[in-house]
């Protein structure tokens, strides 16, 4: 045990003393906050100058005029994120004059490219019957497109209403058909929205991802370096390869926990310093749910052991960082998978696909935490399917992690002394069987 502790202490202090450790402590949260907050900020950025657009009205019933009027009127009082629109020019064109239409479009296309305007819109004849309206733009702005759709729909509704037998003012009909957006709540009555749940889960996955990748690579590099500098032979003449490997894995794990611990302390510090940061209750509901936090810590540890032993495996069979890159790809992909699938999991946390994927050991730590944060269980009860599945997930992935450690231990003791040629798969299998 003394030797194990010596290795552990050496690995721990080597990492913690490095500048990159301090940089990691600062940069990782900056990065995480960056990827979660910046998109929201950009989406809700206030827009000061109006966006310019042009209209081609080939319908010939003054639709263009009413459209631009309606768009001018449309403005919510307190919403600064709402764009305003300015009509640059309105062209009334004969629908049969395709030549003029085409040349106009060419002119407007180049205006778009020169950023003289953001959109142009074309109304073809008989729009109310054949939906033949077109919006042209370089961007895919779904908010603007929805707004334009609404204005045009209202105008067309008025035209249709005119032709019908219904004898009512247009405004009251529009008021009657007003659409609403439902507030979303989880069972138990907690309100939340898609973005908070998505980013809550995203933060959990990213912490696992960043911890595993960064510390896994540190571990792998240290093994490769010890192989290259040939100090490995001195080490294994003093400690058993397994002691060495576990000393490294746990030593770096401690460094990792230290880093996360520092984040938590800073986070609590900021949180309790009132006014410094305001955490919306929905975010707090996802992130500070004690059940989720406990599962998260457990899954983080399991993921750490599982993946770092894979990195130790790779380090022990490779001779250079370059060689190891090929093997990193599958590991990084299996860690990225949950991020790609997160959109789906947030929408379908209970589907068979989600359940099955989250019970595959290499995905369990990340997928299960994503499902947990979407479903957000309030009480710990094994009768609750998600708690049951998460608990099964803990056991399966822990077993798999132990298996990885075992198999890596078998490979490690041979691989660390093999210089030169990288072993082939049959050779690796043979190593596992060596006595």
């Amino acid at each position, binding site marked *: 045990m*003394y*030797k194990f502790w*010596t*290795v552990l202490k*050496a690995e721990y202090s080597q990492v913690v003393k490095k500048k990159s450790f301090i940089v990691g402590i600062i940069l990782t949260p900056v990065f995480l906050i960056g990827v979660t907050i910046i998109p929201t900020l950009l989406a809700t950025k206030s827009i000061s100058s109006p966006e310019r657009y042009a209209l081609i009205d080939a319908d010939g019933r003054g639709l263009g005029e009413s459209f631009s009027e309606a768009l001018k009127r449309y403005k919510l009082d307190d919403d600064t994120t709402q764009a305003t629109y300015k009509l640059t020019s309105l062209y009334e064109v004969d629908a049969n004059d395709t030549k003029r239409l085409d040349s106009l479009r060419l002119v407007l296309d180049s205006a778009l490219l020169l950023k003289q305007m953001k959109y142009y819109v074309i109304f073809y004849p008989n729009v109310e019957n054949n939906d033949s309206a077109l919006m042209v733009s370089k961007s895919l702005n779904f908010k603007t497109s929805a707004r334009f759709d609404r204005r045009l729909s209202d105008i067309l509704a008025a035209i249709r209403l005119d032709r019908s037998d219904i004898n009512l003012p247009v405004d009251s009909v529009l008021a009657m058909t007003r659409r609403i957006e439902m507030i979303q709540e989880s069972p138990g009555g907690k309100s939340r929205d898609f973005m908070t749940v998505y980013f809550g889960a995203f933060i959990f996955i990213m912490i696992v991802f960043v911890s595993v990748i960064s510390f896994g690579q540190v571990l792998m590099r240290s093994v490769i370096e*010890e192989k*290259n*500098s*040939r*100090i*490995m*032979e*001195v*080490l*294994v*003449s*003093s*400690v*058993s390869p397994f002691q060495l490997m576990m000393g490294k894995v746990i030593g770096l794990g401690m460094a990792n926990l230290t880093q996360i611990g520092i984040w938590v302390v800073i986070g609590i510090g900021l949180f309790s310093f009132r006014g410094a940061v305001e955490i919306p209750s929905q975010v707090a509901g996802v992130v500070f749910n004690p059940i989720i936090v406990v599962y998260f810590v457990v899954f983080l540890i399991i993921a750490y052991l599982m993946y770092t032993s894979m990195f130790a495996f790779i380090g022990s069979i490779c001779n250079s960082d370059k060689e190891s890159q090929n093997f990193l790809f599958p590991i990084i992909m299996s860690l990225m998978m949950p991020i790609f699938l997160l959109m789906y999991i947030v929408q379908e946390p209970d589907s068979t696909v989600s359940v099955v994927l989250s019970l595959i050991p290499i995905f369990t730590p990340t997928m299960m935490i994503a499902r947990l944060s979407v479903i957000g269980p309030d009480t710990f009860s094994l009768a609750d399917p998600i708690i049951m599945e998460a608990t099964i997930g803990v056991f399966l992935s822990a077993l798999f992690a132990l298996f990885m450690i075992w198999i890596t231990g078998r490979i490690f003791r041979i691989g660390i*002394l093999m210089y030169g040629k990288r072993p082939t798969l049959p050779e690796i299998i043979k190593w596992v069987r*060596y*006595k």
Partner: protein
Amino acid sequence: MNGYLQLQGITKQFGDTLAVDNLDLSVPQGCIYGMIGPNGAGKTTTIRMIMNILVPDSGKVIFNDKATDADFKNIVGYLPEERGLYKKMTLREVILYLGQLKEVPGKEIEKRIEPWLERMNLGEYKNQKVEALSKGMQQKLQFITTLIHDPEIIILDELFSGLDPINIELIKNVILDLKKQGRTILFSTHVMEQAEKLCDYICMINRGKKVLDGSLKEVKDNYGKNSIHLEIDGDGAFLNSLPGVDQVTNFTNYFELALSDVSRSNEILRAIAEKVTVNRFERISPSLYNIFIQVAGADAVNPPEKGAADV
């Protein structure tokens, strides 16, 4: 034979190559034991099996009448053929870490660090990083790390490779001191002249097999004084054609002549003196190199290394 360290029928095969073939070895306590043989003879593989870094396919390693175990790791000092240290650590940190891995308390090691660094002329570098040292200095540092835990038995693979003559002298003195303290030293080398000057016992290995072993005196006595140590001024090319000379080995600054009939040595001396100035002409036992050639065949070895005789 009842040695302190014993190898019994050790065999190791890598693929189709039999690296070590049924090797028996017996190293007595308190001696300097040289394992010699050309490159690729199986010396390093044998040492790795002693260190339990490689597991023999068959055979046993016995230390102090027991199979080697985890405790053995703490009382052995091992210098592998391929040297290496942590480049980014300071000398003090490296010595401390590697010493603690031998289960010696850090405080105890701290006490030993400075005297050792002083002895190896590295005192001023104590808190510098290993990468700041020259290669020769790193070798000495590695030698310190091998001995810092005061091992009972010291195993040195290709001990002198990469060292200059001054440092070789320094390390030789340390080894002789260790022997005085009753430590057992086993080292391997492919430069046989070194072994000849240092060892009490030798074992010659070729192609994984032992070809000869015993105390240096025994081995030499078996071959009698049938050789001549010759130092001359001028070209020695003609020596091969002298009658009564079986074989000429050209070391860097002297020749060794194997004679077919020792009684004709005066005649040979006269013949040489006619052509060149003789500085030294001495009847000796054959060198280990020549003994090796006699037992293993001339094709078993590469010619002696340049500069080897400077040792």
